[in-house]
């Protein structure tokens, strides 16, 4: 009989047993305890690692939630169902958070906003670099620059630049993470509850004459809406500002606003959405 066969099998088998035993001991001795909840919570998180919550990623968020440092609602991306599921795992009261979406509060696109005649900007096409040089090539110094930094910041494909060079938020895809609002150097993107209807679509503080000149969609500070609104709208530096605790939508004279700066989101005619990739 060929002994070499037996020797080979028994050597390999013996080594196998030896290492398996070592691993079994190491597993017992060197085990690091991890709360099983972390894994469960991590499963429920969006897994996009977008960083909007300010943590290093979804797993880091899960670790901190389980440790009680932050609450499930701190993930701006996870919907209310996921947040309450997480709360259930942790034995916390689910906080009834509202879904937030990004709203672009400027309608001064290529067609509406006047440009500086004879100005030709040559340089990086990002919003932040453009505004450092004479505030960009639009006359309005408060409105959208059109460089698309918000679109770049969006991790969820929920934004695109339309033909009018204004960013558009695709509401179904918007997770409310707020990265676009942080990216906008002019602060024209704001986070609002999804069911909020009425907005002032302008941030321009110029006097009536100037604002009329700089943009066809500017709030010109005429105060008509403020006077009719019973305190729901206040004027600040030639710009109407909505006080959402007091606003009564039935009192707003939308037709009287000559530039349609005050408007409801659903009356807005969206530009045809481009075909979405992925």
């Amino acid at each position, binding site marked *: 009989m060929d002994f070499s066969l037996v020797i080979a099998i028994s050597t390999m088998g013996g080594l196998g047993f030896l290492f398996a035993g070592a691993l079994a001991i190491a597993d017992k001795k060197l085990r690091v305890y991890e709360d099983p909840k972390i894994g469960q919570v991590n499963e429920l998180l969006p897994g996009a690692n977008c960083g909007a919550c300010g943590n290093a990623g979804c797993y880091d968020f899960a670790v901190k939630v389980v440790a009680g440092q932050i609450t499930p609602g701190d993930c701006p991306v996870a919907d209310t169902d996921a947040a309450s599921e997480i709360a259930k795992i942790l034995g916390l009261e689910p906080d009834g958070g509202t879904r937030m979406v990004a709203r672009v509060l400027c309608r001064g696109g290529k067609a509406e906003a006047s440009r500086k005649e004879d100005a030709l900007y040559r340089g990086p096409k990002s919003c*932040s*670099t453009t505004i*450092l040089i004479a505030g960009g090539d639009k006359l309005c110094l408060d409105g959208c620059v059109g460089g698309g930094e918000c679109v770049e910041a969006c991790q969820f494909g929920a934004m695109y630049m339309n033909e009018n060079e204004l960013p558009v938020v695709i509401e179904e895809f918007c997770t409310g993470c707020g990265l676009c609002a942080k990216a906008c150097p002019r602060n024209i993107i704001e986070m609002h509850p999804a069911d909020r209807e009425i907005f002032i679509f302008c941030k321009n503080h110029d006097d009536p004459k100037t604002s009329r000149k700089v943009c066809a969609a500017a709030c010109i500070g005429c105060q008509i809406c403020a006077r009719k609104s019973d305190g729901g709208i206040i004027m600040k530096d030639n710009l109407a500002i909505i006080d959402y605790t007091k606003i009564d939508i039935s009192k707003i004279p939308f037709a009287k606003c000559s530039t349609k700066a005050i408007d409801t989101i659903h009356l807005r005619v969206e530009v045809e959405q481009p075909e979405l990739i992925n």
Partner: protein
Amino acid sequence: MALKTFHGGVHPPEFKKLTETLIFEVMPAPQEIYIPLNQHLGKEAIASVKKGDSVSIGSILAEADGFISAPIHSPVCGTVTSISKQTTPTGFPQQTIVIKTNEQLENLFMSPLNPKTITPEEIIERVKNAGIVGQGGAAFPTYIKLTPPKDKQIEFVILNGCECEPYLTRDYRFMIERPEAVIEGLTLFLKAMGVVKGYIGIEDNKPEAIKIITRAAENENNIEVFSLKTKYPQGAEKMLVKAITGREVPPGKLPLEVGTVIQNIGTAVAVYDAVVKGEPAVTAALTVTGKGVKNPKNLLVPVGTPIKDVLDYCGGINGDAVKLIVGGPMMGVAQFDLMAPILKATSGILVLTREEVSRGEETACLKCGQCIDVCPLNLMPTKLVRYTQLGRFEDAGLFGITVCMECGTCAYTCPANIPLVQWLRLGKQRVKQIQRQQAGLQN
């Protein structure tokens, strides 16, 4: 002996021939002038006139607000027609006093002082009241430079006669036409600060100026004239200190850290006029040049004159003019509105033709390292720009992006035509923002 200079830098074509032989012309006041309330670095001045007031040459239009600020005087006789937001050469609109001028030439200058008997306090007071700001470009109120913090020992005052920006010949003309004012101005600086030694640095492409200034300074034992290598940016503060004294200004610090104070030739002349004639800062000396302007000139114009009137005075612009810059071609600001006014520190108007501004399309970085070779501050522009583009602002900060003075040497030399300065400006702004936030958190 090798000429004194610094490491790095470039030598762009000078184009100074266009105006260097032309004597300063005095331009009459236009119909309307526009005086922005912020013509200096620091806080906006507070308007002390209102609509309908009549003003004379030299009467105060706006008072300084706070420590870093400067008062503003009327350069013409006339009536204030409005105080409103108007375009300025920075590109951003600002509160501006608009004055309709009349024919009168009444002036309300301050009383002349004798430069021989004047006390240091009187000099500083006069410079402050005359609203004089640095003529080198940043428009920093001059009196603050004359009153350094007590714990800093100032050893030298350096007059900057480099005028390293191509095209401009304002400082050169001052040195040729008014050498005695330049030397007297420097003497006043020395007296005001109690400093013994004064230096004047002039690039060696201006032999005539070196000759005249050296002759004018012959009798002043404490003033020395240096001929420096012609290289951009030789006139930058830190480069000038390095070239003349051999001292290196630490990153992020001012030249007074190494015991020096820099003043511009134009500032010295303005201080001389303020003391000897009692004239506040109401006239801007500037070079109107470039191949796009019909008759290039060196001009003395009332502050607040719109660019359009200045160009009309110079015969208008040629048909092929494509770009208008206020300041020098390297660090000046391109203009989009000809109604923007001349400010106290405006040193030139350039009208460039397509041939002068053309540059190729931007391509990918070649990693050639030329920008690193020429950076006068020994930075790595290509690396800093890459970090900025990637949003890695902390890394950009570690590699010293905030030290950059935006001289444009890197972008000038870049064979790939990358707009390095625009990116560096963005990076600097972001890094400073982050540093401020962190400082805020620590407090």
